[in-house]
């Protein structure tokens, strides 16, 4: 199972006994009756917050500065689509 999760999360872990004991520990949540309890995803109950779609300037040169490999104004990666 960890092998599959590792693939999903782009990691290379194949074994970690601690992960199993942590999953077992959080399993204690299932001992609680939560019928009818609304899940809490935001502490103050905020919903979507919209703003006007206004374009403001930003420096692509500064942002590109951090890229490990670039070509002109582009970030370079290995081949993405084969063939």
């Amino acid at each position, binding site marked *: *199972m*960890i092998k599959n*999760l*590792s693939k*999903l*999360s*782009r*990691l*290379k*872990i194949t074994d*970690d006994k*601690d*992960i199993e*004991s*942590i*999953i077992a*520990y*959080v*399993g*204690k*949540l*299932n001992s*609680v009756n*939560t019928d009818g*309890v*609304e*899940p*809490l*995803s*935001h*502490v*103050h109950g*905020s919903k979507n*917050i919209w*703003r006007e779609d206004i374009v403001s300037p930003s*420096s692509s040169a*500064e*942002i590109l*500065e*951090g*890229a*490990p*490999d670039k070509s002109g104004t582009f*970030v370079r*990666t*290995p*081949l*993405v689509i084969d063939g």
Partner: protein
Amino acid sequence: MVKKDISSRELTEKALKDIEKNSNLNAFITLCADDALKAANEADNLRAKGDTRPLLGVPIAVKDMILTKGVKTTAASKILSNYIPPYDATVVRKLKTAGAIIIGKTNMDEFAMGSSNEHSFFGPVKNPWDTKLVSGGSSGGSAVSVAARLTPFALGTDTGGSIRQPASLCGVVGIKPTYGRVSRYGVVAYASSLDQVGVFARSVEECALLTETISGKDEFDSTSVDITPVGEIKFGIKGLRIGIPKEYFTEALDPIVNSLVSEALNNLRSLGATLVPISLPHTDLALAAYYVIAPAEASSNLARYDGIRYGIREEAEDLFSLYANTREAGFGSEVKRRIIIGTYVLSSGYYDAYYKKAQQVRRLIQNDFLDVFKNSCDVIAAPVSPFPAWKLGEKVSDPLKMYLSDILTIPVNLAGLPGMSIPCGFTSDRLPVGFQLIGKPFDEKTLYQVGATYQKETNFHKELPPGVEDGF
């Protein structure tokens, strides 16, 4: 407030020298000596012209989780070890606007995942009270910077106790404000529904000043909230009802912590407060709920570290291997562990059993707090960490044991409340212990009031680690 007859230049030079001299504590990852000295000169000029802003020219340490334009920001991870941000976090911008001087970036657990500061790519932070002991974490470097008087102030972040716990273990004041009070824009994301920026200082009054400086609604963080500034701190707690949650005083609590915190509570009573026994019945589930919600959010937030746009890259023939090699080489073991757990609890077929369930339990935990605030008390007092600082290496190989150190701070993050740690005494080995105040949402004012009143009557926050002098 902080300044006597000393120039900002002198203060900044002294801070830089002291940080250098105490490099064995490993509290800093990066120093900003040139920029800091330049800013200090400017501050001195402004002061000479009559500028009296309280933070003008005051050196402040910033956790390396918080972006600083042009200054390396690593989150104590190898994967960001070469990252230089093109912009300032809102809190940094606000500090600069207030005239404060960013002196350097402090060490921490990688991506704020840890309770001892041993999970840093740059090595552990040492506790100035005993350098064989941990500083606590994840904001260990910031706590130590203030405890060893390297700087008078520091910024940290608190997702499950990462400010309050090291504050307690190092003998300084630490505040985690209400979720939403402070902007998270430009703060490396760990668990976005729990993360909050906060502060360290010697006294509650200084903490209040710094917290107010960085607070407020920010157009770049839609979860930030428009709040009224606190203003003057009120002294005196006569008639205030302080709730004492029985679930926080169990046999898991070290007897010395129990006795020092109980002494602090007696002190608050003798100052006129009424102690009210309360119950927060779902406390026992907080740790489990946290270790579903935080890793779930982390697994998603940390997906961005892929070796493409910034950070380190491990070259590979194909894209998948480039991602996997980069992440394998760039993340430490605790970070990988939490990403895997988060991926597991969010994966199809398990979502309802873990993530949804944890969010429901989170609701129950928040309701516990809201109920007692509605019916029984104005503020809650409790321990911070169940035990004082422990030996380096003692818990690092047993994650669950390490997680237990946050068992009394995590519920506050899950409920989004403000929390503060205040020094309240020492063990027989002269290790500091703090007690925790927990407030209603956005009621930092009462925390300041209780904390400042307590500190007027006690001197624990003025005690210094061996060999340390207070030059501020």
